[in-house]
């Protein structure tokens, strides 16, 4: 057998292994999510069936309960959705404005202790949510903003600012500084140069930073579970707990709420995936 043949066979074998491994990986990634979606459409009896039923039947029961049951002791999904939306959108907007200004400072100015400031800000992000929730709970209770949208928004802004700075710093750094110099020579003030030139150029990057911040707020649990108490301020991740009772869990209903939670996240991430990766790596590698 000549050596060419050996190498050719080896290549074929490797290709096969590659394909199988990739397939298994993708399956492991997809199946848990699909299982949730699938079960949101299965009747409870079937979910609970022993031995398991493998041929799925279809029902909208859980969705009907979820949307219809509000107010009659069911889970007030609409309120949770609204709370989540308000808190996430407002906190994201504020975090982006503050973070963008900070990121711009890091990208464009030289100042003493810059690396120190940067790492310092990041370290605040590293404070575990649970550990922060204890004192924050007490402080917010004293100030009287516990169980309000405002309190949660404030907490999320602080949580999102460091990472927004990291991302926007990366995006602004990609823009050559000559661009705002050219704009200034063309007659802009620094402020005009930013809004008319640098911001539009970095727009897609800023958008992905915004979506990242949005997802963090949208998905956050550790803080929200302590800082919100009532229907008026609980967000969806906290709302998921409503489906659990002492010993039983309404799996179908929970799956339905999970699907409701995941859809916006899915759409948004899909929109910005490319910029997101670019932002993360630029901020880090060129930092």
């Amino acid at each position: 057998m000549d050596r060419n043949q050996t190498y050719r066979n080896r290549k074929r074998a490797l290709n096969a292994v590659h394909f199988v491994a990739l397939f298994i990986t993708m399956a492991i990634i997809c199946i848990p999510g699909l299982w949730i979606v699938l079960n949101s459409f299965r009747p409870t009896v079937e979910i609970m069936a022993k031995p398991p039923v493998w041929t799925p039947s279809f029902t909208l029961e859980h969705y009907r309960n979820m949307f219809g049951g509000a107010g009659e002791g069911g889970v007030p999904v609409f309120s949770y959705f609204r709370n989540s939306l308000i808190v996430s959108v407002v906190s994201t907007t504020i975090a982006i404005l503050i973070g963008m200004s900070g990121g711009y400072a890091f990208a464009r100015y030289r100042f003493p202790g810059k690396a120190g400031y940067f790492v310092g800000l990041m370290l605040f992000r590293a404070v575990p949510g649970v550990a922060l929730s204890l004192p924050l709970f007490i402080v917010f209770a004293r100030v009287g903003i516990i169980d309000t949208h405002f309190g949660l928004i404030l907490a999320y802004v602080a949580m999102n600012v460091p990472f927004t700075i990291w991302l926007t710093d990366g995006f602004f750094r990609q823009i050559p500084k000559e661009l705002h110099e050219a704009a200034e020579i063309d007659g802009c003030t620094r402020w005009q140069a930013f809004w008319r030139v640098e911001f539009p150029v970095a727009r897609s990057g800023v958008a992905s930073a915004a979506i990242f911040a949005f997802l963090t707020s949208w998905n956050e649990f550790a803080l929200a579970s302590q800082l919100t108490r009532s229907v008026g301020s609980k967000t969806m991740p906290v709302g998921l707990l409503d489906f659990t009772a002492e010993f039983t869990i309404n799996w179908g209903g929970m799956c339905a709420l999970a699907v409701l939670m995941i859809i916006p996240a899915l759409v948004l991430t899909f929109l910005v995936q490319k910029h997101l990766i670019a932002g993360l790596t630029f901020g880090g590698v060129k930092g």
Partner: protein
Amino acid sequence: MTEVNLSNVIKDYGKTRAVHGIDLGIEDGEFVVLVGPSGCGKSTTLRMIAGLEDISGGEIAIGGRVVNDLPPRERNISMVFQNYALYPHMTVRENLGFSLKIAKADQTAITKAVDEAAGILGLRDLMDRKPAELSGGQRQRVAMGRAIVRSPDVFLFDEPLSNLDAKLRTQMRVEIKKLHQKVGNTIVYVTHDQVEAMTLADRIVLMRDGHIVQVGTPLELFNTPVNTFAATFIGSPPMNLIDGVVSGSNTINLAGGLSVPVPSRVRGLVRDGQKVCFGFRADNLMPVGHSVEEEGEKHELELTISLTEPLGTETLLFTDVAGNEVQAKMLNPRPVRPGETMKFQLMLDKCHVFDAASSEAIRG
């Protein structure tokens, strides 16, 4: 009248001084090129004129008005950047019109100015493209167009051609020169390429280490360099320099055992035993029979060729004098083999003598 005046302009970056008190007067409509090796402070100087860098000391005046602390937008200048700095999210048309739009000019005036600039630079077919869809030369042209549209008092160019390939660079050089002839504004142009400086400038400002070395017309710098740095920086190939010692009042003994007479121009200005640097350009060392017939003081030398570089109309001959590479030029060339010994004539009255210690030119 828009002359630009720099008096004792200083720039410090922390403790290091990048520009050491520069004095320079640029006349209205003059094309001045700042040239020098990288890090010589030329770009910093330009950026101080533009207002992109604060000045640490001294005074800059544009059109008689001191602009030390004015932001760039109040200096009525325009600038072409090395990497063009076109606004990537705007079309060519928007790029060109941006400055007027910021100045809140009315739409018809903008359209007119943009159209005129586009006409001058041949951009009319590209008006709706974005910078990403343009070639390097086209981007360069848009950058220049953007500068023209403002009809500024002073144009500033910061190494505008260094991102272009050699052929395009030659072509754009001509266009910049034409542009200057057409609009006639004052231009301050920064480059590290002495060819650009020679071809474009009315006046060259040669800089090194934050100091001005020499100011003059291209020919002045070429013919009468003030020191060895100017001699080697300006002109291609660079001037040949050989160390030597003056012996008596009429002879310089060069390293490697050669000796040449002291050119009559500097006779009496050198003293016996003085260490000097003897300099001449390749054009002034030519093989006998392949040279320009020219009157003047001459001296004949025999040198052995180590390498040849035929260029067609002429051939560059490389010889070795005590470890110094010396270049000579051969007109009407014939094939020359390395190792061949040839008789050369040196045009003594075009030679330069520099003091070895100060490297300043000794001149009568």
